[in-house]
C-alpha cells in the first residue's frame, strides 16, 4: 500500500485523526502540542494521533495528501479541517466543537 492510500485509510477509519510531531503525551512542536490541547478542551478523549517524525515517508506524504505544507493537520470524518491556526480560530468561534460533536455522535 502506498503512503497516500495509507493516509486515506487512516482518516476514513477514524472519526478524528491528528497528524503531529511527537505524541499527545510528548509533543515535539508547540503547534502540535497546542492542537492536542484544543482537542482535549473540546472533550475528544480518544483521537487517532500519528507521529510524522516516526515515519519520514508519512511526513512527506501528508503534505501531498491535503496539499498542505505544514504539520499538524487535523482530519474529521475523512475531511481535512486545517492546521494549527485554523483549528484555533474554529475553536474560538465554537465551530470546532460543533464539528466534533456531529462527527462522534
Amino acid at each position, binding site marked *: 500500500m502506498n503512503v497516500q492510500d495509507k493516509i486515506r485509510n487512516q482518516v476514513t477509519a477514524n472519526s478524528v485523526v491528528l497528524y503531529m510531531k511527537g505524541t499527545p503525551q510528548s509533543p515535539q512542536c508547540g*503547534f502540535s502540542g497546542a492542537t492536542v490541547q484544543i482537542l482535549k478542551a473540546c472533550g475528544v478523549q480518544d483521537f487517532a494521533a500519528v507521529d510524522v517524525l516516526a515515519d519520514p515517508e508519512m511526513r512527506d506524504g501528508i503534505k501531498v495528501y491535503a496539499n*498542505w*505544507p505544514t504539520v499538524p493537520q487535523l482530519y474529521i470524518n475523512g475531511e481535512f*479541517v*486545517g492546521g494549527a*491556526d*485554523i483549528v484555533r*480560530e474554529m475553536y474560538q468561534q465554537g465551530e470546532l466543537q460543533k464539528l466534533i460533536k456531529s462527527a462522534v455522535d
Partner: protein
Amino acid sequence: MTADEVRSTIMNGLPCDYVEVLGDDGQHFEAVIVSPQFAGKNMVQQHQLVYLALGERMRAEIHALSMRTLTPEGWTRSAMQ
C-alpha cells in the same frame, strides 16, 4: 529568510490589499494577509493560496507560518470592532 522577504514573496504571488509579517528568527513568522482573492473561500483554501504564493520557500526555508487571512470586507469589519 527575513519577515520582509516573506512579505514580498507573498505579495509577488498573490494580489493583496495588505500584508504584515512579523518574526525575527528566520524560520517562524506570523502574518496578517488581506486579499480580495479570499472572497468565497474557506480558511483552508485561503491558507493554500498563501502557501502557493510562497512556493518552494515554504517547504525549504520556513518552519512555521502562523497566519490570519481576511477579505477586504472582513478586514474593515474587524477594524471597526
